C-alpha cells in the first residue's frame, strides 16, 4: 500500500507525471459504447472521469409519443443481452394501474421466457469475463450454447433477440407443438456442458489468482451504493426480488435464495455459476407445473386503450440486478411519463470512483465484466 501513497504524492506534486488514458469507446476490452478517461501514473490509475452518453437515444421521451401497446416494440431495445425483464416490468406496472390479474398459464409462460433470457445473459456475461482474461475458448463454447437457446426463442416467439413476447394482459403466443420435448433435451445438454466449464473457468487456478481481490465490496457498502442482484448476493446479503416482491409465477415455485461469501470478483463468478444451475432447475419446475388455460386477457381495442390515472413502480429481477419501471398515467391514450431504472448505473457511475483509483489498467475490463456493467441501461 505504500506504493499507492507514493504514487498519489507524485500525481499531486507534478502535473506532467500523469497521462490521460482513454479506456474509451473504441476499445476491445469494453462491452459496448462507453468510456472511462483515466489519469494514470505508470500503470496505476489515480483518477477517473466518466464518458457516458454514446448510447443515449432518449427512450423516456420516445415512450411518451407512442400508444400504450405501441411501446412494446420499443421496450426490449433498452437492454440488448437480457430484454425480457423490461417487457415484464412495463406490463406489470400497466396491469397494476389497470387493476387486472392475468391468467395462471400466462404467468408461467412469462416466467419461462424470463428464465431462458437469464440463461442467455449469464452465458454471454461469463463468456465475456473469460475473454477479458484471455481464455477465448470459453467464450466460443459458451456462445455456441447460447445460440441453441436463441433458436428455442425463435421457435417460441419469432425473433432471436428482441422477443416482444409480453403484452399488457398476458403473452402473445402459446407453446408450439413439440417444444417441450426438444427443450428438455437441450437442458440435458446444457447441464452436461457445465462440467466442462468448471474445469475451464470456475476451477482454473489461473482464473482464481487473477480474479481474487478485484472490486471487493462489503454488504453495507453494496446496499448503500445501490448494488442489486447477483452482485449483492455475492457479499452474503440475502435479497432477491423474486422472493421480496413477487411477480409472474414465482409465488408458486419452490426455490431458495443463494448467497456466496467474499464480495470480490471471484465470489461473483461463483455466484453466477450457482445461479445458472438453479435456473435450470427452475425451468424444469415451470414446465412440469404448467397448467392449461388462456394465454391472455382481452383488453379491448389497442388503439383506444386507456389506463386510469395514477403512478406505480414495478421491479423485476434480471441477470444483472433490479430493473424498475416508474409509470405515470393521466388517463390518456399515451403514457405521461415512464422512467427506467437500469441496474448498471450504481456500479458504472458511482462505484467506479471508489474502486478504480489504485487499480492497474489491466484490471479495468475484468472489473467491469464481473460487476455486469452493461452500458445501454446507463444511457438509455
Amino acid at each position, binding site marked *: 500500500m505504500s506504493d499507492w501513497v507514493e504514487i498519489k504524492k507524485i500525481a499531486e506534486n507534478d502535473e506532467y507525471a500523469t497521462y490521460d488514458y482513454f479506456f474509451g*469507446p*473504441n*476499445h*476491445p476490452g469494453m462491452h*459496448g*459504447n462507453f468510456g472511462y478517461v483515466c489519469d494514470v501514473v505508470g500503470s496505476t490509475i489515480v483518477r477517473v472521469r466518466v464518458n457516458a*452518453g*454514446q*448510447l*443515449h*437515444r*432518449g427512450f423516456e*421521451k*420516445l415512450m411518451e*409519443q407512442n*400508444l400504450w401497446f405501441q411501446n412494446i*416494440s*420499443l421496450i426490449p*431495445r433498452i437492454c*440488448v*443481452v437480457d430484454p425480457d425483464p423490461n417487457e415484464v416490468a412495463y406490463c406489470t406496472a400497466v396491469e397494476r394501474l389497470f387493476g387486472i390479474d392475468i391468467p395462471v398459464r400466462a404467468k408461467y409462460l412469462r416466467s419461462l421466457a424470463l428464465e431462458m433470457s437469464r440463461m442467455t445473459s449469464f452465458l*454471454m456475461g461469463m*463468456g465475456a469475463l473469460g475473454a477479458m482474461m484471455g481464455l477465448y475458448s470459453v*467464450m*466460443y*463454447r459458451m*456462445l*455456441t450454447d*447460447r*445460440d441453441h437457446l*436463441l433458436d428455442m426463442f425463435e421457435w417460441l416467439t419469432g425473433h*432471436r*433477440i*428482441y422477443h416482444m413476447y409480453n403484452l399488457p394482459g398476458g403473452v402473445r403466443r402459446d407453446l408450439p407443438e413439440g417444444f417441450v420435448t426438444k427443450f428438455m433435451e437441450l437442458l440435458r445438454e446444457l447441464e452436461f456442458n457445465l462440467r466442462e466449464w468448471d474445469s475451464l473457468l470456475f476451477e482454473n487456478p489461473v482464473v482464481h489468482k487473477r480474479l481474487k481481490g478485484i472490486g471487493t465490496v462489503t454488504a453495507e457498502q453494496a446496499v448503500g451504493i445501490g448494488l442489486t442482484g447477483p452482485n449483492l448476493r455475492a457479499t452474503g446479503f440475502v435479497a432477491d426480488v423474486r422472493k421480496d416482491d413477487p411477480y409472474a409465477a414465482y409465488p408458486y415455485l419452490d426455490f431458495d435464495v443463494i448467497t456466496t461469501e467474499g464480495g470480490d470478483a471471484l465470489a461473483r463468478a461463483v455466484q453466477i455459476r450457482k445461479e445458472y444451475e438453479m435456473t435450470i432447475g427452475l425451468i424444469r419446475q415451470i414446465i412440469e407445473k404448467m397448467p392449461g388455460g388462456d394465454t391472455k386477457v382481452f383488453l379491448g*381495442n389497442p*388503439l*383506444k386503450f386507456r389506463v386510469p390515472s395514477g403512478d406505480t413502480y414495478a421491479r423485476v429481477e434480471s441477470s444483472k440486478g433490479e430493473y424498475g419501471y416508474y409509470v405515470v398515467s393521466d388517463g*390518456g*391514450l399515451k403514457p405521461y411519463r415512464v422512467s427506467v431504472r437500469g441496474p448498471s448505473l450504481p456500479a458504472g457511475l458511482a462505484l467506479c470512483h471508489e474502486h478504480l483509483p489504485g487499480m492497474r489498467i489491466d484490471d479495468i475490463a475484468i472489473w467491469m465484466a464481473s460487476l455486469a456493467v452493461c452500458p*445501454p441501461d446507463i444511457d438509455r
Partner: protein
Amino acid sequence: MLMVSKEEIMDGKFERILNFFRSRSLWMLYYCTGCGAVELPPTMTSRFDCERFGFGPMATPRQSDILLVTGYVSVKTLKRIIRSYEQMPEPKYVIGFGSCPVNGGIYWKSYATINHLDRYIPVDLNLTGCMPRPQAVIDGFLTLADMIRKGEAVGYKKYRMNYEWYKRNQDQVLGRKEPVFKEIPPAAPVQEEKILAMEGVK
C-alpha cells in the same frame, strides 16, 4: 448534390487485380457502436464462423479495412466514428448495419440520434433488419467482397472528392453554436380525435 461520373470513380484494371486479393482478407474494426453489435459475436464464433471467408476483427483503425457501424448513431458516437474513419488508410469500406443508419429506424423521432448516416460518411453497403441474422450478415459480407472485385465499392474516393460537402454536414450537427428552435414551438396537440376517427367510431 454529388456530381461524379462513373469513369472517374470506379476502379480501373490495375486496381481490380489488387482488389482480387483484397476481397479475400478484410479486417473489420471492432467498435460496437449500438445495439446491433450483439449479433456480431455469434457471427464470429464457432457456429457461423465468418473467419473462413477472410473476415476477422482488428482492434485499431490504423490497420483495418471495414468500419462496421452497427445500429443507431448518436451524436457523440458520430464524432468518434468520423475520427476513426479518417484514421483508416485507404482503401476503406463502410457497412451500415441494421435499419437505423438508413433512415433512422425505430428511433427516427429521437433528439439524440441522427437519421441518415450517408450525409456524414460515405456508406458502401446497407444491411437492413432489426437486427440482421448472422446468415444475413455473412451474405452482406460476401456481397461487399463481390462489389470490391467489380470495382464498385469506392466510398473513400467519394469522400475525398467531396470533402467540403461532408464537412459542412458534419459541422452542422457537431459544431452547433445556436439552438435549433429559435423560439419554443407550442407542444403538439393531443391527437386523440384523429386516432379514434381511424376506426370509424366517434
